[in-house]
């Protein structure tokens, strides 16, 4: 009885501590969200009590540039996700189940993953400008897709490896081709892994900044660049910046919370159980 009591007390104390840490930890984010609901006069003050207003959100949503950048982000991130999954899934299936020597390729893919973006930015910039591809959606989609391929292949390979090889063998004996095995058996069996991978790719493409900054101007510019535009355009219009930050970060936050189960596995390319 007393033992159970002290156990419960400890649990309550630790839970409270946890909650306190969470509150302090998320203070910066909370502050940003609150900033979006303040009036311009209310920002840059420590008053916690203020009259919420939607001025900031109205200013941002009414801004045609912001809307265009958001739309660009949706187009680029969605197309990137589709392209990555289409290209990475067959490769991952082959590496997990087909009789090939794939370890060399896996290592190559990893080395490629470690190459800093800034290192290939300049040559890509030069090539894209010669081909007249600067400031297009296409160039961002192809680049983001390729950057995310290594990660997607590794992650998907893990999911395909979880499917027992006997299932494939049995289907082959029944007369399926490898393509049919892949499309009709493997894809349905790994669908949750594919969705998880897609979400990761979407988040990465949505958040990318460096290549969007260097390769786009205003036609294909993406949402993160809107933050920069807002800062210079509005000076210290913090409510607009807060509202924009909130709108831009909300999709990735929602995705992350939904995908919590896969997050560790994804971020470490499956090298650690999650």
């Amino acid at each position: 009885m007393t033992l159970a009591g002290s156990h419960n007390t400890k649990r309550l104390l630790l839970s409270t501590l946890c909650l306190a840490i969470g509150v302090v930890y998320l203070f910066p984010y909370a502050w940003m969200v609150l900033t979006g609901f303040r009036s311009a006069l209310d920002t840059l003050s420590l008053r916690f009590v203020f009259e919420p207003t939607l001025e900031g959100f109205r200013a941002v949503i009414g801004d045609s540039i912001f809307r265009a950048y958001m739309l660009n982000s949706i187009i680029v991130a969605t197309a990137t996700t589709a392209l990555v999954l289409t290209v990475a899934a067959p490769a991952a299936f082959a590496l997990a189940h087909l009789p090939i020597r794939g370890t060399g390729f896996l290592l190559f893919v990893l080395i490629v993953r470690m190459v800093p973006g800034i290192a290939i930015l300049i040559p890509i910039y030069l090539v894209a400008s010669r081909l007249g591809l600067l400031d297009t959606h296409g160039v961002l989609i192809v680049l983001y897709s390729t950057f995310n391929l290594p990660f997607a292949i590794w992650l998907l390979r893990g999911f395909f490896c979880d499917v027992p090889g006997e299932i494939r063998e049995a289907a082959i004996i029944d007369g399926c081709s490898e393509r049919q095995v892949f499309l009709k058996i493997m894809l349905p069996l790994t669908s949750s892994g594919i969705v998880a991978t897609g979400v990761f790719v979407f988040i990465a493409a949505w958040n990318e900044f460096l290549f969007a900054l260097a390769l786009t101007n205003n036609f294909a510019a993406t949402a993160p660049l809107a933050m920069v535009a807002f800062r210079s355009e509005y000076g210290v219009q913090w409510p607009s910046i807060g509202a924009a930050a909130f709108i831009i970060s909300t999709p990735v936050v929602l995705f992350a919370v939904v995908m919590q189960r896969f997050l560790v596995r994804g971020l470490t390319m499956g090298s650690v159980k999650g």
Partner: protein
Amino acid sequence: MLATGRPALPAGARTAQAHRRARVPLEPYWFMAPAVVMLATVYLGPMIYAVMTSTTHWVLTEPGSETIRAGLQNYKDVLGAPSFWQAVKITLLYTLTSVSLSLTLGTLLALLLDNELHFASFFRSIMLIPMVITPAVIAIFWKLLYEQEQGVLNSLLMALGFGKVAWLGLEYAFFSMVIMDSWQNTPFFMLVILAGLQSVDGNLMDAARVDGANVFQRFRYVTLPHLVPYMLIAAAFRGIATMNDFDKIWLLTQGGPGEATTTITVYTYKIAFSSFDMGRTTAIALIFVVIVLIASAPLLRHLFRAARRQA
């Protein structure tokens, strides 16, 4: 991840597999072809182009200069420039401090979260938020917090009776950058290490308890050794990502004041889009690739071994 291995197959299946392998040995490679083509086009092509560019005196504002051969002159210039080594130093310091800080905090949080708690999964979920928010957004709102005159942090300090701090001034800008990055990445370490904690062998723990080990001894001799691989993996992944960080630094400080927060990525970007000296910029970028690859070699080796075990 489950290691499926290749258990013994029924005899019929094995011959079927051998049969297929003999008949269409190329088929599996078709599954990989699109990925190979994309990776080669976007990575290998530009890399080769970069190597060629780095041996020219190409400055974008001087038409025709791309044909002027420079040999290894650009590399000599870069390696001889104190500003380059300063950027290398800042990059390594930034990576080391940020990773160790978030590793420590993440471990502590994971140990806390490993207890039976109310709302544990809710807590885990909200801690994911910093990890995934758009870095451009993070940088802008941390800049708002660091604002010197009326920013939140300084207002808090004033309210508590301390003086104001020039967060983004010469003295503190580096630490402000580290704090921002650690804030974002502590939850990542927390999650990885929590995964490690939850896979600690319960029997081993019971045995240690029976042998009379106290809570610290159990941590030191049972839990910690088990966690080390998880810590190393997480640190390696974050370390490489932190070395490559650009967005947050660029939007928080643009590398300043002076060169206080100029990492190699910021340095490369500045040189590229201020001097337009393509030869020198690509030389810097390629030297940076070598540095990152050397730094990531242990991680590559580990992942490669893990993949081979699984296959």
